[in-house]
């Protein structure tokens, strides 16, 4: 019996994706049947890509059917590899798209993480422009947004997206699955430019350490030089109870997040806008994170239409001490950034420090001082970041130095 594997999406509603069916044969070489909405423009290239792809994967004889709705090359590669694997072939090599030139370095533990945009891992149409909306982080999700039967397909798409998509400086995050499947997910993402891994439904620091160990082994195996950071997510009563231990699970933990949909279900409460049912858990996560010296990060706000509600939720989160919020739609990002932006007093203080720093630079002084007080380098750095953020969100004019009398 012929071995057959199918992957991807088909039908007139599908956009920027394709469906590929691979039917293995014994001889006769490759037979490619292509239907594509871009056949006239890219038909030849798609055929060539499928031919070369089959060669790389080690599939010399097969009938390959492609129904393409304008999928980008990295998506076609992911679908082809997945179809071949589903046909029962262990590929000779992965089908990797060339890596984009920019931003494959390490992330920084203390970078801004005001917004993190969730993108379903198996929906490539959302990936390519996500960075244009300017989130601090982009999460390619392998967990809850991916149907159980598509986990393997999502891995290939996410791996290729990490390599091929320019996320414009957003931190490149992946949310892995729970347990053993999550550890296997790491094989697909660690060698390909992932900067931070979100670990879901953590209830024990050992879960985080297991992820960290697997990452360390993979880094060594693949020669990945930069650290890969971790953001455990607390989503249960037990997780909240152990918040500090989880946050302190290892040096690569950069932030601790809370996920309230699962948490409220776990404690038997309804999620409300006021959020009294989750106040303890949020405070617990916040204090656990701060005690461990990592960033506390709040849950997502799920009503995309309600901008005022989102703004209020962000201001409340900021008032509590959180530094960021999850986003499920790109239009939430600007609201989140504005709400988490520094207030007037913080900006005024930062302006003074920046002016003092620039003055010291001009005069060739090694030490920055404000009045009689010496300013440490990290404080200057933070003040520069505060001013930059204030400029970015329009709380400071570009010519603020003139107003400040400098």
């Amino acid at each position, binding site marked *: 019996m012929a071995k057959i594997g199918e992957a991807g999406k088909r039908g007139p509603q599908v*956009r*920027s994706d394709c469906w590929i069916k691979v039917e293995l044969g014994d001889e006769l070489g490759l037979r490619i049947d292509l239907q594509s*909405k871009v056949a006239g423009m*890219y038909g030849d290239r798609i055929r060539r890509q499928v031919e070369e792809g089959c060669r790389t994967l080690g599939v010399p004889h097969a009938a390959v059917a492609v129904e393409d709705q304008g999928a980008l090359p990295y998506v076609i590669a992911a679908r082809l590899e997945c179809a071949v694997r589903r046909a029962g072939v262990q590929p000779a090599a992965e089908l990797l798209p060339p890596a984009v030139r920019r931003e494959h370095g390490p992330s920084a533990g203390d970078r801004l993480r005001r917004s993190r945009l969730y993108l379903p891992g198996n929906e490539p149409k959302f990936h390519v*422009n996500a960075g*244009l909306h300017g989130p601090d982080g982009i999460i390619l999700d392998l967990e809850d947004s991916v149907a159980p039967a598509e986990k393997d397909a999502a891995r290939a798409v996410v791996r290729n997206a990490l390599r091929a998509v320019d996320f414009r400086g957003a931190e490149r995050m992946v949310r892995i699955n729970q347990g053993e499947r999550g550890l296997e997910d790491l094989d697909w993402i660690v060698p390909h430019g992932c900067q931070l891994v979100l670990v879901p439904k953590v209830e024990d620091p050992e879960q985080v350490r297991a992820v960290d160990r697997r990452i360390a082994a993979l880094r060594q195996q693949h020669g990945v030089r930069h650290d890969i950071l971790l953001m455990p997510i607390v989503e249960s009563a037990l997780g909240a109870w152990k918040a500090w231990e989880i946050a302190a699970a290892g040096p690569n933990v950069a932030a601790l997040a809370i996920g309230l949909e699962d948490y409220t279900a776990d404690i038997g409460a309804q999620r409300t806008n006021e959020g009294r049912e989750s106040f303890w858990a949020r405070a617990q996560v916040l204090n656990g994170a701060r005690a461990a010296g990592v960033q506390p990060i709040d849950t997502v706000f799920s009503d995309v239409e309600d901008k005022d509600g989102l703004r209020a939720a962000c201001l409340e989160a900021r008032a509590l001490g959180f530094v960021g919020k999850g986003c499920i739609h790109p239009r939430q990002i600007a609201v989140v950034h504005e709400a988490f932006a520094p207030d007037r007093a913080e900006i005024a203080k930062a302006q003074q420090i920046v002016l003092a720093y620039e003055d010291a630079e001009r005069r060739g002084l090694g030490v920055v001082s404000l009045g009689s007080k010496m300013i440490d380098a990290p404080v200057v750095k933070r003040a520069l970041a505060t001013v930059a953020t204030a400029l970015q969100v329009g709380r400071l004019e570009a010519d603020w130095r003139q107003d400040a009398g400098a």
Partner: protein
Amino acid sequence: MTKLVQNAAGRMVPDAINGAQAVPYQGVGKFRPSGRKAAPPIRTCSDYPPDGNKVIESLKAALQRAGLRDGMTISTHHHLRNGDHVANAVFAAAAGLGVKDLVWFPSASFPVHEPQIGHLESGVLHHIEGSMNGPLGDYCTAGRMRGMAVLRSHGGRWQAIQDGEIHIDIAVIAAPTADPFGNATGDRGPTACGLLGFALADSLYADHVIVVTDNLVPFPCIPWQIQGNNVDQVVVMDSIGDAAKIVSGTTQITKSPDRLLIAELTARFCDEAGIVQDGFSFQAGAGGTALSFALFLRDLMRERKIKARFVRGGSTQYLVDMLEEGLTDYILDGQTFDLEGVRSMRENPGHVNTSPFTSYNWHGKGNFASLLDVVVLGATEVDVDFNANVVTHSDGRLLHGIGGWQNCLASRCTILPVPSFRDRIPVLVDKVTTLCGPGELIDVIVTERGIAINPLRQDLLAKLRGSSLPVRDIRELKAEVEEIVGGPPAPPALGEKVVAAIKWVDGTVIDCVREVKG
């Protein structure tokens, strides 16, 4: 055999269209018209009923009395959009009368007009001069129409009628409300659509004018957007259209984050370019991105307490809200897209009817389009010289009409907010498949990846110097797109046969559409 000649834009175009000589495009403002305007025959009221009752029992009878015969040109209009029943009824009646080789001259066609393919096949219709999309577009692009299609802008259609470039034998005007004398309006009645401006030229210049209504009121029909003194006959039908497909109950704004980003960048560009000032004017259509642009602009105007003098465009509830909120003194309306627009036009003296004559006609003593401070338009393709295509898909198939698009290029600042690619199809290309608008009239391209300003607009470039907006070179944007989609697209596989001529606003031929193979 049609001879092809090179026009001033470097495009090869036919020197004759359906047997009549055609003038190749000579450059913006270069072609000088001469002579006098066309005019309909002189009539006498003694040939019309003194009681003013011009109602006749059927469309078929009206066509017969109008002297319908082989080879005539019949016009209809698209104000009933995809809900129109009238154009199909006209050609069904004409087929019943056994005539052949008619020319259909619509102001635009919609997918509802697919039955005309049957009449093209059977020989009742010879060819179509008007926009073609959907099934008609495919039919034409496949090279199956006997004659050559001619695509004109709304203003170009007026110009062609007025200049006698096309002669309308019979105009059939669908009227949501009319009286027996032939006065007609679109702003009321069960199939209200707003205004009838697209039919105005036909009512003035056609040899014979038939008004078709499903809402006959006693004389006088007020307002009379179409004057009964120009009308020969009135036909009453059960229903001239499907109200639900004429105007929408509500106009939806886009939820696409990328389109919203493009719209927001466009509004911010207008702000930083100094366009958004008290007394300014803009035009934005009802397309998703244009509508969102108008909303971002509205927010900006509220924040700065800026008021526009007038807004042009297809009106929607959003423009109506701006008018009622006092953010603009006037809406100069070209077509009405939703029920709120229709209501406002009926009730608000600041919501004014316009026609292609006032707004767009190149061969007039000025037109409103050139008075606009800024206009935002769509496009299927834009090339590195800022030339744009609005009628064909990148594979060469006809898919849109020109509408008012070419006419709007006359504005002080023309902005095309477009995605840099759709799925895998690049919008930014080396050379547009079909040239509809010359790059010298297109000032700014706003994409999700950056804003390209035409180097001819050094003033705009200077204003945006030091801006936080992502102003970039158009070639750099195109290169980025090609990196994403995997290289430049292969050119479409086109045949030799010219299936459609694209007219410029002055009646010259700016480009043509070739048959698409396979």
